[in-house]
């Protein structure tokens, strides 16, 4: 069977490897580098830069650790970006090697569906070729959403793509949108030395996260001096020479060197010829699929951001694998209730499952347990005591429904909760599991214990 995949991001490249291992003849069409947004313009470049600024932050606190650093430490932006580029290139090469090893053919260029079985590939030199396939997976991803009244000029008004390759640290920057991308960049720019203002339409940052988590995030923003205007709209933006005036709905006017717009993502469903294959889109522009990732055209599947479910790299990858499983005849689906998310603010945020506000909306009676990292010896040893673990369980059955973490290594320790939720375990199961001391994971144990008021390191009034 000949499979062609449009897009080599986390959805496409993972699907390609799984399909090749299953004996399919696989071709991947990609106009940029393999790895997609995640590797080239998202997860990996931001985490590389965050590693630099975390180190900077730590060196500035070195006196607290008994280390004398004689001179003032400063970030060297060009070297930070060069380091990031090198990390990205290494990972890109890794995917290219995986493709070679698995006999996957990669066509560099833009793919365009001519019919349900043929794809026209146009390379950068406008050389064209038509590929015939039995099955197609669309994994074309997404791109930064452009607010029509505030179009990107890639200099003063920039997207997250541009922000990853800036050459100078702006004196000040206004970030529109306090979602995941906006919040991560707020910490990056602030620690690089910019004066940062976040403007968010909704009443709080990261509005899909639990309120106990975002309350702590808001305080951490405040501690660092990152200004946040919540429930605030941008009325008007006026560019004058090299500075920008931003008029806000709260009556304030900001003058800034740069605006970073992180107001969501747009689906890459235009100019790929899906209409020639009769594929139906949803009202947000996403490609509609069934729970086996099949579009209404039976030999064409779609995975990742482009289907508009959870726009996360690890979800795209699993959707890619699941689509291939269905293509080769194994009827499989994905459980979306136990998918973790990780946000690399300082401190990190990780969550899985139900938020308290969702439980209230759905009328589910819950118990909660909380544990603050400042009660944990391991946190004191590294000097990172801010943060919280919150556990949510079903009040009747004790089944774990959600775990929310803001604090050190949140993104690493969440997975015990992911497995527990996926397997339908109870808080009692976590409480009865011995956790190694001294570790950050003990905070999950104690938060589970707290559901029944049994946490050892909590003083109850």
């Amino acid at each position, binding site marked *: 069977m000949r499979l062609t995949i449009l897009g080599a991001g986390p959805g496409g490249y993972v699907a390609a490897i799984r399909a090749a291992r299953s004996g399919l003849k696989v071709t991947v069409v990609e106009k940029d580098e393999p790895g997609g947004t995640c590797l080239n313009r998202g997860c990996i470049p931001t985490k590389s830069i965050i590693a630099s600024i975390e180190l900077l932050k730590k060196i500035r606190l070195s006196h607290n650790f008994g280390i004398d650093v004689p001179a003032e430490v400063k970030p060297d932006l060009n070297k930070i970006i060069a380091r990031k580029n090198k990390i990205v290139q290494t990972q890109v090469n890794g995917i290219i090697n995986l493709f070679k090893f698995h006999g996957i053919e990669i066509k560099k260029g833009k793919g365009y569906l001519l019919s349900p079985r043929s794809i026209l590939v146009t390379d950068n030199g406008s050389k064209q070729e038509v590929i015939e396939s039995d099955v197609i997976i669309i994994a074309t991803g997404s791109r930064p959403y452009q607010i029509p009244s505030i179009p990107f000029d890639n200099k003063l008004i920039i997207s997250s793509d541009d922000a990853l390759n800036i050459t100078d640290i702006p004196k000040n920057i206004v970030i529109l949108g306090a979602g995941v991308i906006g919040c991560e960049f707020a910490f990056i720019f602030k620690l690089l030395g910019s004066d940062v203002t976040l403007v968010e339409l909704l009443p709080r940052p990261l509005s899909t996260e639990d309120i106990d988590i975002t309350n702590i995030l808001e305080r951490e923003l*405040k*501690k660092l001096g990152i200004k946040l205007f919540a429930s605030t709209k941008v009325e008007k933006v006026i560019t004058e020479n090299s500075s920008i005036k931003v008029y806000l709905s709260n009556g304030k006017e900001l003058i800034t060197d740069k605006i970073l717009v992180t107001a969501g993502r747009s689906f890459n469903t235009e100019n790929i010829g899906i209409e020639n294959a009769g594929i139906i889109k949803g009202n947000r522009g996403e490609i509609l699929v069934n729970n086996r990732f099949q579009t209404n055209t039976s030999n064409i599947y779609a995975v990742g951001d482009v289907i508009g479910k959870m726009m996360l790299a690890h979800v795209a990858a699993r959707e890619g694998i699941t689509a291939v499983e269905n293509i080769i005849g194994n009827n499989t689906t994905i459980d979306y209730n136990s998918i973790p998310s990780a946000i690399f603010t300082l401190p990190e945020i990780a969550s899985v499952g139900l938020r308290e506000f969702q439980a209230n909306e759905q009328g589910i009676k819950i118990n909660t347990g909380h544990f*603050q990292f*400042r*009660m944990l010896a391991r946190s004191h040893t590294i000097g990172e*005591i801010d943060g919280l673990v919150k556990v949510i369980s079903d009040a009747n059955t004790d089944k774990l429904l959600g775990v929310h973490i803001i604090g050190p290594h949140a993104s690493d320790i969440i997975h015990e909760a992911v497995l527990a939720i996926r397997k339908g375990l109870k808080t009692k199961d976590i409480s009865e599991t011995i956790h190694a001391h001294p570790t950050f994971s003990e905070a999950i144990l104690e938060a589970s214990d707290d559901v029944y008021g049994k946490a050892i390191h909590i*003083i109850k009034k």
Partner: protein
Amino acid sequence: MTPDDLKYHKEHTWVKVSGRKVTIGITDYAQDALGDIVYIDLPEIDTDVEANTEIGEIESTKATSSLISPVSGKVIEVNEELSDTPEIINEDPYGKAWIAVIEINDESELDDLMDASEYTKYIEEEIK
């Protein structure tokens, strides 16, 4: 260590009255219970605050605690020094570590507060 010239609120804040402008802070008992204080989220100038509600938050190395206003009124001054050196709350809770000045609406509210001997008894009860 409970100064006689101050009034006290049950959430362990003190009030120093001088006309309609009152200075507030947290008590020695509160700072001792919290331990080493590492951060205080101060109320903002010009905000209206209500007695018995949260107007800020204090973080120590072992706990976080709400700062509850003992009076109602408008915040007219805050002790910015506490942003950089919150540890002075541990060192001098009744002096250098005053937290805010509030212009009060209703002086009769002050009658609800405790005097030093009442507060001393109150914390003795709380320890039991």
